[in-house]
């Protein structure tokens, strides 16, 4: 089976492209084929996982070359996959959550006339994402990397007739390209420095290069990771990306694609292990993003944007953990997986709420929905308890581990992650209160109704996973499982016992949740948002996404527009003007030379006379001198 891992990618790819080319006749059944294709990949993923787990710990990796992709001179890139414990976990996450979201979308997109195309894009996304995590060469990662970017572009802009959706799609792609610039340069540096772009070789031999090379490589990869994972400073696209259909937000912009940056850092552990500076940069980026994302999450009234802020923040946690090196890699992946469960769950739950509310996303128009949407409420509550880290739920374990490791690394970083946990509890409780509790604030023409089973079953499955996902840590399983890939070292001993640490975290979470309850649960929520001028600056800043767009606008967009306009002008007037001007002068010179040829004998005679005189004078001058 492990020689057939390429089928994981091939099945959804063929299905996606096939349905796209097939045409209208496939409208009736295309979504079913796409769902089955994704499920088939999942089944294969499970089989491969079992086979891999059956092997000895040091034998758990398979590299298989399918064909030579590019070969010229010393440049050699194989189209090869590398299936190992890290890839295996991702395969299960991508195909598992992916299949659930396919199923959900059957219901969610039932009335969209372009449903077949939606499923094609989903399939293509799954194929590209699997390529990304299975690649054995950085250039093949890049293929999957930009492939998921394309799928994301197509799906954010799926409702192309909405200018806002089209603009968000374009923005996501362009911002990601800025990150890809870093990744492309990192790959070039690998080739120039080591002569190969093979992941295993690069990470094994980076130690022979100088630290500054490893640092440069790490920082360039981090730039790529920031773009894909919406980390500061390349975060601005993620909130706009919520223009896409909600299943897309759940799959691509919460559970899988946006976590690819974390995957990249963990996969490149050899490079990051070799550079302290690069690791520090990762920690800083993660810390800043986790606080900024949480802040934004507190201020948004749009349920999807609040969740998107939360996604940024949670990925910040993962990124930070990955920056801690071998002490944190496994926990980064652990949180990535539990987050994949509970965030997909909550996004799909939000979709179910929107479905009930005629696609209204403003939480100020919700309230008291727990009675009308009992299943959605129950499953959402499981996700909620998981993300805030309620003891026993998956997020409790995964976030605890990261906070502990952060304290082991540096007290200030630890305090930052602790603060983040409190704020997470605040904004999630706020979201919960505004949506499911309090008084109903919907207008009379809205009749909330529970979603059909095809949508609620995936919710139930993901709800259960949100509750039980912590089991991956039982007996340190996930740490042991990943050890052959990323290694593991215990973080520094903490000043206080782990149990006390957990108690402190839970206390901070309780404070955050209580504050939100007092503000949004006990008091009525206005159904119209207060104006910017009526709220204090922290809320204003959060609403404006910490002015990220304004900063980009001022630092990048306007200068580029200005340069572009100037260059277009200069190209026409300057360069081309010079050339055409040259031609014009030539024409004028000809005109001037033409003047004496006027056809009048007397003027010619005058000319001859003048010329003869000139010659005579010249001759005389020469002779006399």
């Amino acid at each position, binding site marked *: 089976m492990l020689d057939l891992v390429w089928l994981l990618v091939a099945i959804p790819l063929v299905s996606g492209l096939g349905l796209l080319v097939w045409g209208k006749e496939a409208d009736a059944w295309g979504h079913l084929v796409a769902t089955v294709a994704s499920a088939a990949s999942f089944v294969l993923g499970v089989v491969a996982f079992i086979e891999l787990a059956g092997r000895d710990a040091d034998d758990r990796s398979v590299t298989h070359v399918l064909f030579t992709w590019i*070969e*010229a*001179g010393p440049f050699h890139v194989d189209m090869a996959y590398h299936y190992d414990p890290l890839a295996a976990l991702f395969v299960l996450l991508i195909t598992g959550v992916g299949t659930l979201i396919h199923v959900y979308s059957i219901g969610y997109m039932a009335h969209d006339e372009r449903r077949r195309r939606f499923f094609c894009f989903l399939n293509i996304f799954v194929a590209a994402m699997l390529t990304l995590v299975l690649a054995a060469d950085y250039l093949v990662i890049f293929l999957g990397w930009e492939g998921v970017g394309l799928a994301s572009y197509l799906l954010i802009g799926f409702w192309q007739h909405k200018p806002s959706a089209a603009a968000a799609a374009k923005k996501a792609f362009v911002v990601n390209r800025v990150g890809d610039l870093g990744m492309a340069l990192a790959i070039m540096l690998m080739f120039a420095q080591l002569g190969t772009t093979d992941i295993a070789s*690069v990470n094994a031999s980076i130690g*022979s290069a100088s630290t500054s090379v490893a640092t440069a490589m790490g920082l360039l990869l981090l730039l790529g990771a920031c773009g894909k994972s919406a980390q500061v400073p390349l975060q601005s696209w993620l909130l706009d990306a919520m223009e896409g259909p909600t299943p897309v937000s759940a799959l691509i912009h919460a559970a899988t694609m946006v976590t690819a940056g974390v995957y990249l850092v963990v996969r490149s552990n050899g490079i990051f292990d070799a550079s302290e500076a690069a690791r520090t940069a990762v920690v800083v980026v993660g810390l800043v993003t986790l606080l900024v994302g949480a802040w934004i999450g507190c201020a948004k009234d749009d349920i999807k944007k609040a969740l998107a802020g939360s996604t940024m923040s949670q990925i910040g946690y993962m990124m930070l953990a990955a920056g801690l090196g071998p002490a944190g890699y496994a926990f980064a992946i652990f949180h990535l997986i539990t987050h994949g469960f509970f965030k997909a769950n909550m996004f799909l739950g939000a979709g179910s709420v929107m479905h009930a509310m005629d696609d209204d996303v403003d939480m100020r128009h919700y309230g008291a929905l727990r009675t009308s949407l009992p299943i959605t409420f129950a499953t959402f509550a499981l996700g909620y308890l998981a993300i805030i880290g309620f003891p026993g739920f998956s997020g409790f374990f995964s976030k605890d581990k990261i906070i502990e490791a952060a304290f082991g690394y540096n007290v200030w970083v630890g305090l930052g992650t602790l603060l983040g946990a409190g704020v997470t509890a605040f904004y999630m409780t706020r979201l919960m209160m505004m949506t499911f509790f309090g008084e109903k604030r919907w207008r009379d023409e809205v009749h909330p109704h529970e979603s059909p089973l095809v949508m609620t079953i995936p919710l139930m499955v993901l709800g259960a996973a949100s509750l039980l996902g912590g089991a991956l840590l039982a007996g340190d399983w996930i740490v042991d499982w990943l050890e052959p890939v990323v290694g593991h070292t215990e973080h520094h001993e903490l000043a206080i016992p782990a149990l006390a640490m957990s108690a402190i975290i839970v206390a901070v979470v309780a404070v955050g949740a209580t504050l939100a309850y007092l503000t949004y649960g006990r008091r009525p929520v206005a159904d119209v948002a207060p104006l910017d001028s009526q709220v204090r600056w922290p809320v204003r800043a959060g609403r404006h996404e910490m002015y990220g767009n304004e900063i980009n606008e001022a630092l990048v967009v306007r200068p580029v527009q200005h340069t572009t306009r100037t260059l277009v002008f200069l190209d026409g007037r300057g360069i081309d003007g010079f050339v055409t001007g040259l031609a014009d002068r030539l024409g004028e010179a000809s005109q001037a030379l033409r003047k004496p040829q006027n056809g009048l004998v007397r003027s010619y005679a005058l000319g001859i006379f003048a010329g003869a005189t000139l010659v005579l004078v010249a001759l005389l001058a020469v002779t006399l001198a």
Partner: protein
Amino acid sequence: MILTLLAATPLLGALVVTCLPRGSANASTVKAVAIGFSALTLALSLVVMARYDVESGGYQMTEKHEWIGQLGAWYSLGVNGIGLVLILLTTILVPVVLLAAWDDRLPGRRSVNSYVAWMLVLEGLAIGVFAATDAFLFYVLFEATLIPIYFLIGSYGGPQRTYAAVKFLIYNLVGGLLMLAAIVGLYVVSAKDGNASYLLSDLQNVDMSTTTERLLFCGFMAAFAIKAPLFPFHTWLPDAAASATPGTSVLMVSVIDKIGTFGMLRWCLGVFPGASEWASPVVITLAVISIVYGALCAIGQDDIRRLVAFTSVSHFGFIILGIFAFTTVSTAGSTLYMFNHGLSTAALFLVTGLMIARRGSASIGDFGGVQKVAPIMSGVLLVAGLSSLSLPGLAPFVSEFMVLAGTFTRSVPAAAVATLGIVLAALYILIMYAKVMTGPLREGLEGFRDLGSREVAALAPTLVLIVGLGFYPQPMLNVINPAVDEVISQVGQGDPPPRTPVDVSEQAKTEEGGH
């Protein structure tokens, strides 16, 4: 003989088409005959491709007849991997262009006979240029290609066609004139050295002083830089593309402009290696400027055809950068880029050409929301656009990355600035796509027709090749690599070795683990 046959087939086709009766009643027959001849040429070029022995490399299927003995000019043809790839590109694109041009509305009462005949003439001459191994023959054919394009723009283009055609002609004649001076100079040099000969193989062994070599290099390079076009000699291209029919634009940008970059490889690097190296800092700088400048100007265009023309300025920058980085990786990348850019730009010019013909305007502002009424056209434009912005998985990515990776080993700053092009490319393509295809449908576009089956058939080959070569470029690279190795060793350069190479035993171990 097969190369002569290959070049003569489209010329014969042109003759036949000219003799066919004119008038709209016969237009379909005329086009069908033209397509038939171009298809025959394509078949022949595939035969050439199949007969080319990749293992032994070098120039093959050579023919040599004395032409003007006193000058040492020979009718001498032969193909190496680089020429072969470009001949293949030419023969693939001409039938595509003819098929896509089926419904072109020509201005006034111009006959379709001469329109397609000129295209076939151009094909024949282009094949000759790519196969010529004699500098004099090359020069004559190089200049001869101006004639069909002059008429294709000047007689069949848009309202500004006369201005554009004259501008095109004068610009290129200036370049050609400088090259003529260099050609004369070559005669002097080779005559002084013994026997006067214009044969490439002889010229490579001619002794010349450094100054002479540099002067002659500049003569050739000037012509090629204008043709390619390299910043700041590019301003003829946007005007020409804006006034030409889409088919003419494809032949001009995808095929004929490649003569510039092809010429740099074969004649500049081949005959003047020392001077090429001497000039490389300047050329690399101009190439990097071209990449960024062309992309920025493309972002600011409102006329779709000018936009595509400026994207080509940027792409030619990449090609020239790769050539003058003197590594086998970047140069093989550049050669592959010539082929891929030809496909990608052809798809882009043709699909936007169909859009423009339907709308009656080339202004981006006159479109909007077209995706709603023409989903297939929108999909084709997107794929063509994505190939232009070098999305991995599509052919141009492979070549662009090779150019960048190879250049990086030679000059980090040049590669780093050039890589900015990938962000700017996303801007010029996606902004245009968003304005044209997305949003609410613009008024007046209600009856906009989607692509018909003939149009899809014309465009399909380019798209299939773009996707296919994106995943499996090796068949092309296998042909290109030996020729590139030869050129690079001619220059006396090679790939800088990795600074800290991966331990071979380490690599062997990881590879072993894979089987």
